């Protein structure tokens, strides 16, 4: 499987995601934001970080980059797109995913490990979570509070387009275990065709037992399997 990682000025997690993808035999290429052509890729990744310092609105300025047109075309052709954290914010600003990511409820940056329930395992990103669908991944963000109008939320729930929800260690989905106030405890969503995944947690940070955990590995194993 071939992947392109889009690097914006201020992206921070490009190296981390590249390491995770390569570990699971997905080749990677870094693509600078003002390129006009995407190399041949099965997967496009929008990594985490603070593109453009999160100035004006997070993900907003990156969504106006030259390369985004190509990323949109890639998705129209059915190509896979993975947006992590700032990448999720950029997907939303681009309009490839619905809703908005607001400031965390407590108005503070929050970096900690959280429990997640994998709600939809029938997509190319999450298929390997069938064997373990209550996982722990780190979050690190200031604007992870997913919000959409009731109509959109109902649609996401009904069409099974929610990939991850925040929960307790037993999988119980509860406001008490929602770290940022996001609607319906949403931590990650898919588009209609399930070829685009946007998620706030960082799977690329949990792929090594010494660094205390491998719950991120299953996402990359799923991707590798899917080609």
């Amino acid at each position, binding site marked *: 499987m071939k992947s392109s990682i889009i690097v914006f000025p201020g992206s921070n997690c490009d190296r981390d995601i590249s390491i995770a993808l390569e570990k699971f035999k997905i080749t990677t290429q870094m693509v600078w934001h003002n390129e006009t052509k995407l190399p041949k890729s099965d997967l496009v990744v929008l990594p985490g970080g603070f593109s453009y310092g999160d100035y004006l609105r997070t993900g907003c300025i990156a969504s*106006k980059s030259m390369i985004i047109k190509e990323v949109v075309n890639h998705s129209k052709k059915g190509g896979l797109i993975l947006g992590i954290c700032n990448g999720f914010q950029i997907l939303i600003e681009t309009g490839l995913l619905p809703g908005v990511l607001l400031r965390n409820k407590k108005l503070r940056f929050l970096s900690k490990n959280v429990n997640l329930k994998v709600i939809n395992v029938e997509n190319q990103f999450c298929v390997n979570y069938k064997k373990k669908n209550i996982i722990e991944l780190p979050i690190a963000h200031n604007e992870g509070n997913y919000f959409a109008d009731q109509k959109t939320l109902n649609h996401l729930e009904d069409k099974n387009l929610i990939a991850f929800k925040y929960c307790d260690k037993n999988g119980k989905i509860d406001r008490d275990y929602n770290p940022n106030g996001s609607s319906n405890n949403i931590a990650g969503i898919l588009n209609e065709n399930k070829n685009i995944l946007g998620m706030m947690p960082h799977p690329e940070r949990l792929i090594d037992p010494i660094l205390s955990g491998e719950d991120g590995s299953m996402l990359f194993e799923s991707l590798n399997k899917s080609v």
Partner: protein
Amino acid sequence: MKISATVTLKKDVLDPQGKVVNQTLKNMGYKNIISVRQGKFFEIEINETNKDKAKKMVEEISKKLLANLVIEDYSINIEK
């Protein structure tokens, strides 16, 4: 009565956000833009009919809370 307060960074202070918005607009093709400064806008509705009293109150809250006087300025407008 509605009074608005606009809070902006002081003239000599670096505005990182304004700088990036300016550059992005240029990249989007708006070559005539000279500079952009970013600020905050507060619309305050007060239960008060006396214009002067209302203005004085908003001055006070701008100084005490809305603006960080170390690096920000504020201006006040009476809305209709």
